[in-house]
């Protein structure tokens, strides 16, 4: 299914001494993945693309052109066999997931953990089962209760173990949830086993009456997700740091672009957290 970048002549006609060449030009994603990584990306549903663009156009010559002349003509027409970033709502390349690309367009997977910064609290790292298995298992071993489904990642904030469930089907971990959300988190007190739950939806899902009750809500812009607490009178609004292009958040799950989460309790802001990748 992979297309080869380059151009090819798909038809040639000599009409009254003019050479009419219809040329197909193919531009492709230049990134290369080793087989193991690629399989891993698919198995773990890590975002990546295999984009190609193909155009055909008519070129005229007053003689039978050489390969070099055709090459020059397609280049002058703007053809680039390497796909450039195109703004179509997401970044075409490596815009999602923990991917990095080197100067040779070889893609590797970044392993930086998600970090949470909260004023007045220690910074917290979130460990992924696949990427940080040792740290993850250390936290997992601290659980005072058994869980039916292994979470995707975990962190420890104070005395609370946070379990995050991320899966392609958005299927709830039925031990804790009956309703469906985009993402799920479960907080379990490491000593008492008390459980508190939060479900995440994309965008803003609160009704107007609830929104009106949130203190300072009108200062929040570019909301990307809503976190609904199932066991507390709380809600968290996740929003971009600014309206600048570099702060645009495509995917709240992967935290490739830092963003904020503002939590309200009974309508009053109780904390603001910043989410980013640990450097």
């Amino acid at each position, binding site marked *: 299914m992979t297309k080869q970048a380059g151009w090819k002549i798909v038809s040639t006609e000599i009409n009254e001494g003019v050479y*009419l060449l219809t040329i197909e030009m193919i531009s492709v994603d230049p990134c290369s993945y080793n087989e193991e990584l690629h399989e891993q990306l698919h198995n773990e549903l890590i975002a990546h693309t295999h984009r190609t663009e193909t155009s055909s156009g008519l070129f005229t010559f007053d003689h039978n052109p050489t390969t070099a002349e055709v090459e020059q003509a397609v280049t002058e027409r703007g053809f680039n066999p390497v796909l450039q970033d195109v703004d179509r709502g997401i970044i075409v390349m490596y815009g999602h997931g923990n991917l990095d690309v080197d100067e040779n367009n070889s893609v590797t997977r970044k392993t930086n953990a998600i970090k949470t910064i909260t004023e007045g609290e220690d910074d917290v790292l979130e460990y992924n089962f696949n990427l940080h298995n040792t740290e993850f298992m250390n936290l997992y071993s601290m659980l005072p209760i058994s869980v039916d489904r292994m979470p995707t990642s975990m962190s420890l904030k104070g005395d609370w173990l946070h379990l995050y469930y991320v899966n392609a089907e958005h299927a709830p971990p039925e031990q804790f949830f009956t309703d469906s959300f985009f993402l799920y988190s479960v907080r379990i007190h490491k000593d008492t086993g008390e459980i508190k739950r939060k479900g995440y939806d994309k965008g803003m899902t609160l009704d107007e009456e609830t929104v009106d009750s949130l203190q300072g809500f009108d200062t929040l812009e570019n909301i990307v997700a809503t976190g609904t607490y199932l066991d507390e009178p709380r809600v968290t609004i996740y929003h971009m740091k600014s309206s600048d292009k570099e702060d645009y958040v495509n995917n709240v799950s992967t935290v490739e672009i830092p963003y904020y989460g503002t939590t309200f309790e009974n309508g009053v802001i109780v904390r603001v957290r910043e989410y980013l990748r640990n450097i």
Partner: protein
Amino acid sequence: MAHGLLIKNEDNEVLIDSDYIHYHFLGKYTHSSVTQVPDVSGGGDANVDAGGNSPNENKGMQNMPSKGEIYVYSVPVNGANPPMCFIKPTSTGSSAPFTGIVLTKQSGTNWEIRVFQSTVTSASPVLYCFSPLSQVSTTTASGDDYGFKTFNSSGVVTFDSRFKPLRAVGGGNITSPGLAHTGSTGSGWTVSLSVNASSVSTSFTSQSSASDLIYYCPSLAHACQQYTHEEDDSGIFDWESYAWARGDIWWCFYRSCFRIASTSSFEANYGVYARGHIYEHKGDTTSVFAGLILGALTGGAYFAAILATLVAAGSFTGANVDGGNYLPYENSYRNTSGNAFIISKASYYD
């Protein structure tokens, strides 16, 4: 020439030949209707939001050049010889639209003439038509009993000065441009197929007033150019596998047409006679889909099938033009050279 009459001018060009069936003024005609070839436009969408980055723009006729219009005339001349129709254009000069006869067809006791004009104007071209005397009303008015009349060897009248014989004041051959559009035909989902060829100019015997001139020059040349673009992608986005592909083809079918550029200059270029844009856009949230579609949206077979479907669906119903996809060939042109033209004056016949 064993008998008869042959009159030549000082350049030894034949003006009157009694053996030749000369054309005489039939009448001056305005159009009965005006039409355009309907756009061939459409496509298929299936789960196009898969992946979140699937391109949805420009699925209609955005950025396509405007079409010219077709004036339909019905000339009452019952005979086997088609009338020779001169066009009195809506305007002359370097900004005037280009005009040419694209169809001459016998329809019952009339001849249907279709005149294509490169741009839409409020004014309309007028036809000055000529036919052999046998197809012209030769009723004479009282006192119309003088002049000059010739007969051929069979005794048939071939020229009669009382019935406004065709008077040519200039003429020649003109070659239309090859391609109607030169250079890039598009980028991404933005097509560029407007007529940008330089007009071809040729001269004729200088006359005193360009606006008085009428011309005979059937449209023979045509060009057809297209732009295709396809994008596809597959991978993982938002924790889901996805694949999508979109393939488009845009095309214009151009007809040659002409204008009086000055009192001594005749120009040829193209107008957009028909145009089309079809696409197919499919997406899915399984990676298996990628292998199924990525090879399917390219190539003539796919586009030919969807074109046939669109045309069969009756997109031309009521448009008073022949059905078809108006994509007769790809990226080429035909019949550009040796287009004869004749110049006359409207004032001779008004």
